[in-house]
């Protein structure tokens, strides 16, 4: 009997029909655009046409979106990875490893040895949909992206964990002028890293490697990058798109009547099993009243030819778009543009300026200002008078529409910015984290994925009867929620409305998190391109239960605010580029690696008119001033310096390696002293770097653990590579009892990560890895306990020596802490003498690692502020009883530092939070409430493997602007 196999994936529907000898007699590959039912019926009809004589088939369905159909049509379901394996065993004997990328799934199958199949978890990008998303961002088709990538010269590091992260890495690269060849290749490389790092989990990929699935079939450059990373040549077999379908066909063991199946599928309608929300509008009248109300918030618009006298230009060079506005002295708009930045704002703005000069050659631009991501480059390129931070620009514009505004929420393409206004000044700022950017580009991507443009798509949602409840999570999760809703039979209309609502919920419950809805006030201005979408606007009003103001120029508010600012600060004449100079304006871009320090920042050098240079991508001022950064007021730098002063001394017991990560950043003085006195040569692992991380990446078993923990794999690997035969990295449930708190735990990851290292790092073979459970919190018992551990390995060690070394070790730890505190005090005093503001950069001991904090400390001191750490001031408050269980040593310091800051006028706190740090879900809220109670602004910076410093800069500047 002939066999049919269906593979209904997240984006495509694949089908094969096999004859008795397993030859393919029919095959089809098509995007289903969520019309799974219709497409399936269509396909079955095609099969009937192609093979009119066959009525009965062995039929099976596979694929993540196939479950629903398979149940209703009573066709057996075959899990897709399993199907791939069945097909590979049949058609590709001799293969060892299969790598298959699909629309939203990534899989690795190990066929030889102990057979294993791996599939990406819930939090993982790096798949076809991700590549599509990135291509959209680059304004390329995926095929073009492949061609571009083949011509690359260099690879940039792009976060591979999920699309949202990658996006925030790609955008600044584009803005800085990096070329699309290199970016395309870097995106592919990120996919490679994600697949290998996330799925291999310690198992080596070797032997014959086979590539399957859409992306690996269509993009030879992606295959080449896989080859490079795996150091072998994999093959992409014929029919590589159809392996899941082939496997389903091979596994099919139930004969079905194809006509009957078609009938069943036609009847199939998953009867609204998804959770639904209130419709946005129930009638067209309701919608009409809504649009009428919002039409009121408007500004007078005239044309450039009306211009008499001075005009003022505002530019908002955002992450994905460029907006410009020209106003006259009456603050009426004479000219405005809204366009995509096409990856680089400079040529776009050049065209706009040319257009302005052409339309009105005698124009007098009295003053101009620029805001947004591209602020620096635009300011440099065109001689713009002022650069202002986005929050200020938006507030300025919002006041124009509602002088007593209490809350502003701006949702743009990539960012979400919300400000609370109190007494006419910005009182608090909320910006979206890298992990929750349910913004404009998010809606757009979904619209495109479902085959619509954004306007058409959002209109569809306005009158949806049963909007799908999609929750309020990040894009990656949203993909699967949408998939689920489709499975349950939701219409495009329902999904569109649901997505708009989820953007709103994301903003309210993830970004702003007000104590209650009333906390935002009743006087709200909403703006940003995303609010031009009526569905989003309506959803916001519904969720908040208030009528808000949406200015007609919602998308132009940044630029309008900049123009208003320029008018106010007018320093006539403007330094803006003249018409003549613009005609000969030239712009070239090149990238180099900075060799100023070990950060090796990738610098993008923009040259304008062959003589003016603008450097971006730098974390410190060194490549610009050619001087080392001034670290005298940087406690992070001092802590790193202190640690580097613990030198290794040759010892009679040989070398003992210590991986420098997590709690070792604080324990190192203790262990260094302890082991040196016992007669060991203490060898720390080298400084963290991207390379070091990649070396250990394949042994990480949990892809959602925090980055500092992941980095440990690389540190241990380095020590092994250095030939160290004894590595010391103990498990520590408890930390020092410094503070009178409820308990003094380490977090579960810090406490037990050595267990993960031991169980997953195969390279530890032949190394004595000492990872016993050690309690430094019990000073009296400690020597006895550690003696037992060490004595069995090094019989020459005596209890007496251990006791002596212990006393010295505890003392050394106290000394270290005392030095940090003393330096903190000094910095505070210096800063006060010089009238500098003090930022308390708070986090964990390991956040001083430059690879983890991405140079944020230097970024902060570059703003002419002093920087200290939480542990240098946490002892200065007598007693703090936080509103949560105060049980983790590192976190207890945060609460106390926050409390202390509320008593200091010139100090503010910035909290570094590692992505995936579960404990910080508790601490951030608590620190925030301590600060807010003391009328201080809380600023949080989420950091991960890679962090977009552009966003960090905006956040810091916003904070400093409020002071």
């Amino acid at each position, binding site marked *: 009997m002939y066999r049919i196999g269906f593979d209904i994936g997240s984006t495509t529907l694949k089908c094969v029909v096999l004859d008795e000898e397993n030859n393919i007699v029919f095959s089809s590959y098509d995007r289903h655009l969520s019309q799974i039912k219709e497409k399936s019926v269509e396909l079955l009809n095609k099969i009937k046409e192609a093979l009119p004589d066959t009525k009965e088939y062995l039929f099976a369905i596979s694929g993540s979106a196939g479950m629903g159909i398979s149940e209703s049509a009573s066709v057996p379901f*075959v899990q897709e990875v399993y199907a791939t394996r069945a097909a590979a065993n049949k058609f590709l004997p001799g293969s060892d490893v299969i790598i298959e990328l699909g629309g939203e799934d990534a899989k690795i199958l190990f066929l030889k040895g102990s057979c294993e199949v791996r599939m990406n978890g*819930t939090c993982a990008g790096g798949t076809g949909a991700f590549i599509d998303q990135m291509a959209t961002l680059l304004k390329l088709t995926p095929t073009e992206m492949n061609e571009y990538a083949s011509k690359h010269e260099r690879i940039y590091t792009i976060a591979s964990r999920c699309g949202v992260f990658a996006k925030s890495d790609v955008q600044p690269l584009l803005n800085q002028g990096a070329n699309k060849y290199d970016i395309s290749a870097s995106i592919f490389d990120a996919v490679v890293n994600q697949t290998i790092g996330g799925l291999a989990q310690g198992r080596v990929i070797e032997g014959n490697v086979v590539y399957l699935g859409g992306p690996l079939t269509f993009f030879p450059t992606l295959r080449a990058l896989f080859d490079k990373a795996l150091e072998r040549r994999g093959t992409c077999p014929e029919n590589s798109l159809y392996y899941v379908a082939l496997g389903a066909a091979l596994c099919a063991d139930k004969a079905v009547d194809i006509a009957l199946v078609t009938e069943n599928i036609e009847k199939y309608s998953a009867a609204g099993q998804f959770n639904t929300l209130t419709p946005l509008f129930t009638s067209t009248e309701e919608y009409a009243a809504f649009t009428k109300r919002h039409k009121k918030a408007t500004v007078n618009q005239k044309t450039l030819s009306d211009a008499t006298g001075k005009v003022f230009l505002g530019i908002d060079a955002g992450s994905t778009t460029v907006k410009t506005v020209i106003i006259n002295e009456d603050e009426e708009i004479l000219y405005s543009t809204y366009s995509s930045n096409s990856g680089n704002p400079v040529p776009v703005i050049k065209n706009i300026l040319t257009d302005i000069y052409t339309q009105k050659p005698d124009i007098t631009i009295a003053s101009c200002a620029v805001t947004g991501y591209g602020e620096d480059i635009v300011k440099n390129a065109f001689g713009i008078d002022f650069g202002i931070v986005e929050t200020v620009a938006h507030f300025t514009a919002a006041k124009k529409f509602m002088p007593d505004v209490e809350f502003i929420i701006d949702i743009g393409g990539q960012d979400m910015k919300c400000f609370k206004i109190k007494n006419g000044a910005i009182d608090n700022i909320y910006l979206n984290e890298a992990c929750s950017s349910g913004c404009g580009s998010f809606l757009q991507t979904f619209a495109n994925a479902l085959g619509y443009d954004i306007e058409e798509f959002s209109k569809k949602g306005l009158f949806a009867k049963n909007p799908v409840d999609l929750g309020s999570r990040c894009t990656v999760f949203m993909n699967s929620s949408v998939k689920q809703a489709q*499975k349950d039979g939701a219409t495009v209309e329902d999904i569109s409305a649901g997505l708009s609502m989820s953007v709103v919920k994301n903003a309210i419950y993830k970004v702003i998190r007000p104590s209650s809805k009333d906390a935002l006030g009743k006087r709200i201005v909403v703006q940003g391109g995303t609010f031009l979408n009526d569905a989003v606007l309506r959803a916001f009003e519904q969720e908040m239960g208030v009528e808000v103001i949406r200015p007609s120029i919602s998308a132009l508010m940044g630029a309008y605010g900049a123009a208003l600012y320029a008018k106010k600060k007018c320093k006539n004449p403007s330094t803006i580029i003249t018409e003549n100079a613009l005609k000969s304006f030239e712009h070239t871009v090149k990238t180099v690696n900075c060799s100023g320090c070990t950060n090796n920042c990738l610098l993008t050098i923009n040259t304008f008119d062959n003589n003016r240079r603008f450097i971006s991508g730098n974390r410190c001022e060194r490549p610009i001033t050619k001087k080392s950064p001034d670290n005298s007021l940087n406690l992070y730098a001092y802590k790193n310096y202190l640690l580097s002063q613990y030198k290794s001394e040759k010892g009679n017991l040989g070398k003992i390696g210590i991986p420098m990560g997590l709690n070792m950043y604080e324990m190192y003085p203790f262990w260094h002293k302890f082991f040196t006195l016992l007669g060991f040569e203490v060898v720390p692992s080298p400084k963290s770097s991207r390379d070091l991380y990649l070396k250990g990446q394949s042994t990480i*078993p949990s892809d959602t653990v925090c980055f500092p923990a992941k980095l440990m794999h690389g540190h241990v690997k380095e020590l092994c590579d250095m030939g160290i035969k004894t590595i010391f990295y103990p498990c520590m449930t408890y930390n020092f009892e410094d503070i009178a708190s409820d308990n003094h735990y380490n977090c*579960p990851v810090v406490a037990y990560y050595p267990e993960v290292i031991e*169980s997953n790092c195969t390279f530890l073979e032949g190394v004595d890895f000492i990872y016993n459970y050690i*309690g430094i919190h019990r000073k009296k018992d400690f020597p006895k306990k550690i003696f037992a551990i060490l004595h069995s390995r090094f019989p020459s060690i005596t209890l007496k020596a251990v006791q002596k070394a212990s006393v010295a070790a505890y003392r050394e730890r106290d000394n270290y802490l005392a030095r940090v505190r003393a330096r903190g005090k000094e910095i505070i005093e210096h800063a006060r003498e010089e009238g500098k503001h003090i930022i308390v950069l708070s986090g964990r001991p390991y956040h001083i690692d430059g690879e983890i904090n991405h140079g944020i400390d230097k970024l902060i001191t570059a703003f002419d502020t002093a920087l200290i750490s939480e542990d240098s001031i946490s002892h200065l408050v007598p007693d703090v009883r936080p*509103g949560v269980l105060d049980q983790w040593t590192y976190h207890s310091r945060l609460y106390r530092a926050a409390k202390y800051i509320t008593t200091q006028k010139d100090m503010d706190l910035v909290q570094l939070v590692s992505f995936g740090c579960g404990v910080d*879900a508790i601490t951030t809220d608590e620190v925030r409430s301590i600060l807010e109670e003391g009328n201080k602004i809380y600023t949080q910076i989420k950091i991960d493997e890679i962090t977009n410093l552009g966003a960090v800069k905006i956040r810091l500047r916003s904070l400093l602007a409020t002071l």
Partner: protein
Amino acid sequence: MANHIEFTKEMKKTHTILAPYMLETQFDMLGEIMKSFGYKIEILKNRSEEVVQDGLMYVHNDTCYPALLVIGQMIHALKSGKYDPDTTALMITQTGGGCRASNYIHLLRKALVKAGFPQVPVISINLSGLEKNSGFSLSLPLIARIMACLVYGDVLMLLKNQITPYEVNKGETVKKVEEWKKRLSESLYANVHFSLSKVYENIDKIVSDFAAIEINKTPKVKVGVVGEIYVKYSSLGNNNLEEFLASQDCEVMLPGVMGFMLFKVDNRLEDIKLYGGNPFKKLVCTILFNFFKKFEKAMIDAFSKYPQFTPPMPYEHTKENVKGVIGHGNKMGEGWLLTGEMIDLVQMGYENIVCAQPFGCLPNHICGKGMVRKIRELYPEANIVPIDYDPSATRVNQENRIKLMLSIAKEKL
């Protein structure tokens, strides 16, 4: 800032206490015990989508899923209007360990303030002396009865899971479970004098009663479930995992909660062993541990009489199993016990394992996902799939991954 309202003696008379629903077999009976001690208690069973929504609205969204659900359930109940917030109290467990769970109570209090119920007192159930309320005490007689109830629950759960897939008369087992729950609840309510021998007797009766159910042992895929305690047991937390596995024609083994109780007491002894400590504390914990062990023994003895049943692994065996895999000092969350249960399951023939955890669960990075490789190295037949649970982790993705695990299992059948 801290909104700590004490549960006073007076409140014991006036207030209805709402408690979350985690161990479905055990908690109904627990309610009866509490009633016999004079508390007006109600176990919350609301589980609509609004529960999750309320959780998302009032709890930091990066907090673990169980906190979101438990708090969501409570706020949802209070908002429903069914309970007068002035005469309602809430009850929640607090383990006192190094994982976030010890902080649920504080998150709940913050949520209560946010949601407009600052007057509602929250009772902490803990064995660490973390919080005290004059109107509620975890007295020894109460502890003894709670233990009895937990062990009855374990027995019923294990029997139900082992028999239902094979019963000849469909529905017979579940019916019996309900009957016994009722009977035991009544006896727990009436049982003024607690005696251990009565527990032994009851367990024996239960097991022999279930042994009488007619079964037809056909080969089925045997799946073990381990994980973070809430998502492991609560169907609200794990998207009806047991039901799904049953629908895929599997026999499911959920290791009981007794092991966890022993583990929590034993941790204190282990701490003293590893780091040194107070001999008196050691003595108290040893007595408590030995007392708990008696309940476990009752269960194992009863099961061992019938060859068709798989008795639970003795705690010591599980502990021995993890030697060389993970340290006994690993105590946060489910700690080494989770790893141990996976090994137990493989040894008992349930080598297909779902390791369930809330998304981003910190201890499970170590004792769950972190140990899979090593377990497979020791037991190549182990077929483990880690599944994350989260408000937006969709069922379709979870079931798809479980199906992959099941496909491999079926191949070996």
